[in-house]
């Protein structure tokens, strides 16, 4: 993994002292960590630890009551989701959020919407520069389709696809945005071993080839240990540990809190590594 050490750059995103509550329920309290350029950052923790809330804070679905977010050197308190998207943050969802009535191709094309800059009236006339633009975007989308190996389902309405493929299309739509920061919320949940391996390969490849920075939530410890450069551990909305996969794995707090003190779990952790 040494080649990765070279690639990792400056801090891309930093969250400081983030607190978020819904009514009386504290989802996150005083969480701080950072994500560096080109790295794969995992966020782990038991159910209800606040992992998805954290992603939702980063891309603007939730607005934290306290804390600061610094993205690309700009400090912000909160942001609307579509603004986050404009600034290069793309994401996938835990419960797939695709446009079910549209085909795979159209779904991925929607990821290009922000990049279509031609005047609406040129587009309406489908004339001159607008035609060229549409073709360019189509080309970019075809590349993504090739990359994710989903050529066969190009025209299929995504509502008809099996779960694993839907996850892949959702990743494709996020990639179409050519994001700088990609947030993946349990990209491998509900997949079989083969599908998981494919997904891992895609994540590593796109990090390698395009240098995309990735923050992902995942429950499969084997996957987390294989993929990530650094790991954040959350528990009950608080930061429990932050470090490389090895550091986190050997952290006694993490072993106790995240895996429970049962020794059975402990073994599975070793096995996964």
């Amino acid at each position, binding site marked *: 993994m040494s080649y990765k050490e070279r690639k990792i750059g400056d801090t891309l995103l930093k969250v400081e002292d983030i607190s978020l509550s819904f009514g009386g329920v504290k989802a996150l309290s005083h969480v701080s960590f950072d994500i560096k350029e080109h790295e794969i950052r995992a966020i782990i923790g038991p159910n209800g630890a606040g992992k998805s809330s954290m992603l939702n804070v980063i*891309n603007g*679905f939730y607005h934290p009551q306290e804390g600061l977010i610094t993205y690309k050197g700009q400090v912000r308190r909160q942001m*609307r*989701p*579509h603004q986050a*998207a*404009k600034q290069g943050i*793309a*994401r996938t*969802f835990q419960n797939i*959020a*695709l*446009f*079910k*009535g*549209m085909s795979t191709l*159209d779904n991925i*094309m*929607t*990821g290009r*919407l*922000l990049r*279509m800059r031609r005047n*609406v009236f040129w*587009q*309406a*006339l*489908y004339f001159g520069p607008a035609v060229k633009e549409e073709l360019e975007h189509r080309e970019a989308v075809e590349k993504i389709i090739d990359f994710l190996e989903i050529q066969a389902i190009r025209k299929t*309405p995504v*509502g*008809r696809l099996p779960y694993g493929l839907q996850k892949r299309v959702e990743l494709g*739509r*996020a990639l179409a*945005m050519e994001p700088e920061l990609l947030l993946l919320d349990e990209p491998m949940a509900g997949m079989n071993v083969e599908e998981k391996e494919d997904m891992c390969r895609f994540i590593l490849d796109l990090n390698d080839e395009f240098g995309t920075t990735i923050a992902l939530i995942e429950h499969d410890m084997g996957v987390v240990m294989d993929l990530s450069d650094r790991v954040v551990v959350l528990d009950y909305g608080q930061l429990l540990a932050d470090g490389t996969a090895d550091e986190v794995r050997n952290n006694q707090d993490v072993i106790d809190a995240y895996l429970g003190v049962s020794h059975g779990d402990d073994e599975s952790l070793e096995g996964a590594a």
Partner: protein
Amino acid sequence: MEMLFFLETVISGLLTGVMYSLVAIGFVLIFKASGVFNFAQGVLALFAGLTLVGLMETFGLPPWLAIIATIGVMIALAWLIELLILRHLVNQEQIILFMATLGLAYILEGFGDIIWGSDVKVLDIGLPQGASDFLLDGYGLYVERLEVVAAVIATALVIVLAIFFQKTRIGRALRAVADDHQAALSIGISLRTIWITVWSVAGIVALVAGVMWGSKSGIQFSLSLIALKALPVLILGGFTSIPGAIVGGLIIGVGEKVAEVYLGPFVGGAIENWFAYMLALVFLMFRPQGLFGEKIIERV
């Protein structure tokens, strides 16, 4: 002679159908962008008509200026609807949004009443009235001029809308928003912009519908009830299709006229009142997504 009469019936049906289509298109727009049946669409037409007449009568504006001002009012209204209602209902169940439009319908109706009064108003923006001489003299065919004008305007409107929504990125964004709010936000679509755009366009379509119906039979409360006639049109054409709304409107327009004239005598008349709904019921049984609607796919 018999043939000529049939032709007159069909043409008159077609032209009524154009009116239905106009109202139905307003529904389709909002349904496409928010997956919601906008109960207030009929009232929007009433409100637009009332505002137009009010501006002309109260301030003595010439028709063209009043129309531009009314368009401004409809856009402001769209902005207000987003600000006060839609914004707070993001990610809610569709039934909740539907109930909100129901509330909106009554608020608008009352609001229009308070400002412009509740009596029937005559709308005259100088559209031609009476029989079309050319057809009457040349072919002995009686066709209302106003209805011909309505058909021409509706056709132009439909062409502009179709181009706007099918060929531009707004069209794709619209479908995205209709499908999944959260996902649409995550790819950078501003719900606000889309909703204001769509409600503005729906408001302008309502204005056109209001002007056409109003020129024919005056601006009155019953205008808001044409919403109910649009429902079977939508079931026929499919809730998501603008061409569907047009074809559906025409079929129902012609169908009810022809049925009234040729079947009416045998069943005691008044077929016009229920024919559309019966046709819709038949369609619901055999083709629930309508003629042009998207197939409903649900994975279990």
